[in-house]
Structures are given as structure tokens and as C-alpha cells.
């Protein structure tokens, strides 16, 4: 592949959504521009104006809602082409090393693209439901699209950059662009969730920046030049020369900081609030990929730490964080009465399993972790998108007030049930294979990690029981059938099918998975 082609492939995943976001923002501004003319007429003027464009684009098919699917397709395409290229002849770089794709990048791009297809594919149905309920006008819809696309761009940038500083900037940018998606309504719960989200994530991620600065300091003192001291491949290659004491402090801060964004203790408190308040497709993106994009940063730093300090340090740190998160998530799942929060705590449960796999660190554990990232992303995005439709049908997020979903909307309830079954790690879904892999690797990795894995499995069992009991309550029971729109459910079916297919065989992705495992030290 020529350098121009790889530069193009590396630029497109972040640039395409950014361009589309700009297009949405501009169109949104232009449709709003005629508004001020009638505004001063009456006190009710602004209200009338806000509704006016909505009447204009009354036709049921809204091409603007579907245009959002373009960037997931581009991301998937670039991800696959990069995957083929890096498996054959190693990592690709562009812009003098600023952007770089190795197998982990390609894997994460594929996950981001696949989850974004599910989320952006569900968005038109979700938005028309919101419009019908009078909760969205033209302005909020344009803003929704622009922010979601910017969110995708920030996540792709975080994945394709090799510079750890730019990685940090991109992860912090995801917080900023999603703040108004979390707080898209002006209600008390919405504002509260957005405030907690921005304050906790920004403060947490600031710790990661302090950690990044310390690593940079250690790298400069180890004789690495200014331009390369935050370059991931350079740091990995020369990690043995980093000062251990400074690196230890830096890595601890980085793990805590990016862990905040990945929903791990101690800075996890934003996660259930934000996931339950955001619009369903955004919850799907946040839970499905934002958490794992942040964790991919931890995986990158883990390679540096293991080379500089030996594997013991990150192992203890990550295993401790994983167990605490898992215990917290399992406990709160038992007491959960809100189904969107239930899904949010289930995300914490799965992220802690991924952290545990990273702590174990053997090749089997790391490839299981990567497979788990993909499987959890697909299953959780389907679950969240389905929960958004359920919320529109039943009008509440309380588990206790939802009965007989299977009778009321069989297809939608089927998709939700399928996603929860996948999250409970039943075969044929890929989470079964990955959890089995993590457990096997844990028991093979010595006595202490064996105990940790045993405790983790016990906690997973508790979470399993809580999830099963609550979902069964929602699905079963009598109910009057409501009108369903099966054509709106294709993204959910696609997501579940992909998750099941990954569980049966990784097929053409096998080489990529192995290469990605090697790239992160497996």
C-alpha cells in the first residue's frame, strides 16, 4: 500500500464524521436562520418558530437521519482495509508518526464502526418516536446528529493516533461533545446527570493527563527527544530505560484516569447516571465503544508499564480495580429497579472482566479481552437501542411497571431478550467464548490469580441472576399487542447476528485478533 493510501485510510475514520458533523451543524443553523423574523411579534413567537421547520420537513422519510449512517460505513471500510494491510505487512503510519494503525487500531475501528452501525441505524426510528411524542424539534435533531458525529470523530481519533498526548485530548473531547447529549433535556435528572458526567470525567481524565506528563518527563530524562517522547512505539521500544519510580506514579494516575472514563472504580459514579439519561442510541455508543476506547488506552500504557516495571505492578493494580468494580456492579445490579441503569451496571461488570483479563495478561487472556470488547459492544448497543424503544412504548424506566413485553411487542422484546441473553454470556454469543477464555487464562496463571478469577466468577454469577430475574419480569406476563414497525429493528437483528457469528467463529478476523494480541504484549 502506498503512503498516500495509508494516510487516507488513517485520516478518513476521524475526518469523515467530523465533516458530516460540520454539515449537520451548518444545515441546522441555516434552517434556523429564517426564524428571527417573526420572533418579536408575540411573546409566544419563539415557540411557533421552533416548530415551524418541523412542519416543513413533514415527509416520513427523512434522508438527513439516514445520512448519519455514512460515517459508520466509512469507519468499517477503513477498518477492514487497514486490518488487511497491517496483518500482511505490519503497522502503518502517516503525518510523521502522528497517526498510526496497528492491529489493535484496526480491531477497535471495526468495533467502533459495527457499534455505530447499530446505533446510527436505530437513530431514525428513535428520533421519529421522539418527534411523535413532541420531545424533539428540528433544532434538537440537528444538534443530536452533529454531536453524535463529532463523538464518533473523537473516538476514531483516540484510536488511530500514536501520540499519547493526542490520545488524551481525543478522550477528553468525547466528554465535551457528549455532555449535551447526556443533558439533552432540561429536566432535573438530565441536568444532574450531565453535571456529574462532565465534572467526574474531566477531573478523572485530568489525572490521566498528569500521568501522561510524568511519563513524558521520564521519557525525556531517558534521552528520548521532544518529538518522540509521547510516541507510543518509541516508548514501548525504550521502556526499559524509563525511571521506575516516576513511571510507577505515572502509570497509576493513567490507569485511574482512563479507568474513570472506562467506568472502573473509584471514579465510576457518572456512568449509571449518564447512561440512563442519554438518548438510547447515544447510550449504546457510550456503553458499547466509549468505555472500551478508554480501556484501549489503558491497554497501550500497560505495555509500557510491563516493559519498564515488570508485569507485577499493573497486574495487582488492574486486578484490584477489576474486583472492586465487579463487586460494586453485582451488588447494585441486585438492588436495581430501573432497566437502563441495570444495563449501565452490566457495562461496569463487563468492563471489569476486561480489566481482569488485562491483569492476567497472557495471550489467551488478552485475545479474550479483545473479543469481549467486540461482543460486549455489539450486545450492549442492541440492548440499549431496544431499551430506548421500550421506553417510548411504556413511558417509564421502572422495571416494576413493565410487564408482558413479549405479548405487547414480540419482535422488540425478542431483540431485547436476545441482547440480555448475550450479556449473560450464553452460547452461541461471543461473550460466552470470551468469558470462558478469561476464566481459563485466570486459572492457568497461578494460584493468586486463580483465586481472583474464582471470586470474579462468583460475582458474575450474582450479576447473571439479577439480570435474568429482572429481564424475565419485564418480558413475561399478559399484555395487549401494540403496533410494531419491524423494518426499524434491522440494526438490532444485525447486531445480534454479528455477536452470535463472532461466538461461532472469528473467521477472517482470526489473524487480526492474534496480531492485535501480539501488539499489546500477548
Amino acid at each position, binding site marked *: 500500500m502506498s503512503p498516500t493510501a495509508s494516510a487516507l485510510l488513517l485520516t478518513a475514520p476521524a475526518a469523515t464524521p467530523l465533516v458530516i458533523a460540520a454539515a449537520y451543524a451548518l444545515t441546522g443553523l441555516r434552517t434556523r436562520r429564517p426564524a428571527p423574523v417573526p420572533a418579536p411579534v408575540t411573546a409566544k413567537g419563539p415557540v411557533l418558530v421552533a416548530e415551524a421547520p418541523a412542519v416543513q420537513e413533514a415527509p416520513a422519510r427523512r434522508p438527513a437521519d439516514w445520512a448519519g449512517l455514512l460515517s459508520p460505513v466509512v469507519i468499517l471500510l477503513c477498518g477492514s482495509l487497514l486490518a488487511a494491510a497491517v496483518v500482511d505487512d505490519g503497522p502503518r503510519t502517516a503525518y510523521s508518526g502522528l497517526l498510526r494503525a496497528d492491529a489493535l487500531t484496526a480491531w477497535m475501528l471495526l468495533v467502533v464502526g459495527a457499534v455505530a452501525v447499530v446505533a446510527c441505524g436505530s437513530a431514525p426510528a428513535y428520533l421519529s418516536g421522539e418527534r411523535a411524542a413532541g420531545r424533539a424539534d428540528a433544532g434538537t435533531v440537528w444538534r443530536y446528529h452533529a454531536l453524535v458525529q463529532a463523538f464518533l470523530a473523537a473516538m476514531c481519533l483516540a484510536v488511530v493516533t500514536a501520540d499519547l498526548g493526542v490520545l488524551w485530548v481525543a478522550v477528553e473531547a468525547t466528554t465535551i461533545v457528549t455532555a449535551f447529549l447526556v*443533558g439533552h433535556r432540561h429536566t432535573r435528572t438530565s441536568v444532574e446527570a450531565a453535571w456529574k458526567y462532565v465534572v467526574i470525567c*474531566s477531573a478523572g481524565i485530568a489525572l490521566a493527563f498528569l500521568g501522561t*506528563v510524568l511519563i513524558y518527563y521520564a521519557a525525556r530524562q531517558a534521552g528520548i527527544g521532544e518529538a518522540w517522547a509521547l510516541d507510543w512505539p518509541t516508548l514501548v521500544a525504550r521502556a526499559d530505560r524509563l525511571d521506575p*519510580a516516576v513511571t510507577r506514579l505515572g502509570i497509576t494516575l493513567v490507569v485511574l484516569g482512563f479507568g474513570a472514563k472506562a467506568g472502573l472504580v473509584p471514579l465510576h459514579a457518572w456512568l449509571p447516571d449518564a447512561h440512563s439519561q442519554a438518548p438510547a442510541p447515544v447510550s449504546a455508543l457510550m456503553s458499547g465503544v466509549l468505555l472500551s476506547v478508554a480501556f484501549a488506552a489503558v491497554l497501550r500504557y500497560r505495555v509500557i508499564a510491563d516493559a519498564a516495571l515488570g508485569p507485577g505492578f499493573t497486574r495487582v493494580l488492574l486486578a484490584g480495580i477489576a474486583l472492586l468494580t465487579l463487586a460494586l456492579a453485582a451488588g447494585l445490579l441486585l438492588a436495581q429497579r430501573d432497566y437502563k441503569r441495570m444495563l449501565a451496571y452490566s457495562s461496569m461488570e463487563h468492563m471489569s472482566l476486561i480489566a481482569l483479563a488485562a491483569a492476567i495478561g497472557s495471550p489467551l487472556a488478552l485475545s479474550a479481552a479483545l473479543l469481549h470488547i467486540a461482543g460486549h459492544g455489539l450486545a450492549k448497543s442492541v440492548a440499549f437501542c431496544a431499551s430506548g424503544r421500550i421506553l417510548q412504548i411504556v413511558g417509564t424506566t421502572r422495571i416494576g411497571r413493565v410487564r408482558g413485553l413479549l405479548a405487547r411487542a414480540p419482535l422488540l422484546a425478542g431483540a431485547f431478550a436476545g441482547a440480555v441473553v448475550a450479556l449473560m454470556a450464553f452460547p452461541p454469543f461471543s461473550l460466552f467464548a470470551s468469558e470462558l477464555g478469561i476464566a481459563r487464562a485466570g486459572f492457568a496463571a497461578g494460584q493468586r490469580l486463580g483465586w481472583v478469577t474464582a471470586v470474579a466468577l462468583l460475582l458474575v454469577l450474582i450479576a447473571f441472576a439479577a439480570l435474568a430475574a429482572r429481564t424475565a419480569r419485564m418480558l413475561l406476563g399478559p399484555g395487549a399487542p401494540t403496533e410494531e414497525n419491524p423494518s426499524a429493528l434491522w440494526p438490532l437483528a444485525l447486531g445480534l447476528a454479528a455477536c452470535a457469528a463472532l461466538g461461532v467463529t472469528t473467521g477472517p478476523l482470526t489473524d487480526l485478533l492474534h496480531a492485535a494480541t501480539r501488539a499489546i504484549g500477548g
Partner: protein
Amino acid sequence: MSNGLYTQLLDLACGAFLLAAVIVLWQRELAAIVRVFGLQGIALAAIAVLLGAHEERWDLVAVGIGIGVLRAGVLPYLIRRALAALTAAEPAEAPRRITGRQRAHSEEVRETQPLINITASLLTAALLTLLAYAAARPLTELNPTPATRALPVGLAVVLIGFFVLVTRRRALAQVVGFLLLDNGITATAFLATSGVPLIVELGVSFDVLLAVLVLQILTTRMREAFGTTDIDDLRELHD
């Protein structure tokens, strides 16, 4: 500039930087807190400019001036504007409730009941500074220069910022806490390595600016939804 003068000026700037953080803890009026925060921005810019002048790196001087404009000018201006919006946006109620409204008004711009009282806060600041010195020992030992010897100051401000963030109840006081944390990290970066690469520095500054804008808008919304900016009233979401 001679070495002795450089060291003294650098220590002076770092001392002012730490002192500003402590005064933020001491003050209750949000307006005074924002003013002190602005002064801290100037001290931070002075650190960067001194380092740049000492190493004769003029790009660093430019970065320092840019940081000064952002942290001593733009960010305090944004917070002050949010504060003015809070005090101006008095709900048009019946005049008979004037006394009640005035009390609410004064509570809006003051930290009336911090979670931990002022004396205990100042003692905690002293402990946090000691902790910062202990934690920074390996950092200073790696490359002992006048700049890295002042490095614990940056870490102390990070810790004090965190402390403000968790103990203050006013939304805008929390924003200042977050910005103190950020100032501390920037100072650490300057003192340890003369600053991170320019592209990262630009990205970080841009992110901080946007975060403050977002928080400012959320503060207004919080006032609309809850009628106050007291964080303790955010209790709708819990398990």
C-alpha cells in the same frame, strides 16, 4: 539573567502559585475566589515565561503568554459572566418575598456552608502540601534542577484542586476546583519538562476552554431546573 536571580524569581512565582490555591480555600465569596484564580493564572504564566527566558526558548515564552491570556483572562471572564447571570436572573416574583430572595441571592454567590469549615480546610491544605512533597521525591531525584525542585508545588495545587472539587457545594466553586486541578497539572508539566509538545498543549487548552463553556451552560440550566446551584440538591439520581 543570572542563575541566582532566575532561581529566586522562579521560587517566587511558584510560591505565589501555591498561595493563590490556599487563598481560594480560605475565601467564601465566589467573586473573590475567581479573582484569586485569575492571579494564579498570572503566576502560572510567569513560571512558563521564566523557564522560556532561562532556556532561551522563545516558543515557550509565547506559550506562557498564551496560557496567561487563557487562564488569567478568558476563563475568569467566563466564570464571572456565569456568576453575573446567576445574580441577574432573579425570578420575577411578588415583591413581598424580597427578604427571602435576597437571602437566596447571597447564598448563590457565597459558599455559605462548605462541607468542611475554613480552618480544617487550611489544615488539610497543609497536609496535602506535605503529601505532595513526599510523593514528588522520586520526581525531583531523577533530575535535580531549580525547576524540578519546585515541582511539588504543582502537585500540591493538583491535590488542593481535588479537595475544593469534592468539598465545595456551589457549582461554580466546583468549576474553580477543576481549574485549580488543571493549573496544577500545567505547572507540573512546565516545571518537569518545560511543557508538553505544542500540539498537545493546544489541544489541552482548547479542551479546558470547552469544558468550562459546557459547565457554564450547565450551571444556568441547573439554576433553571433546581432554582439553585447547590450541588447537594442534585439528588434525583441514586440507587
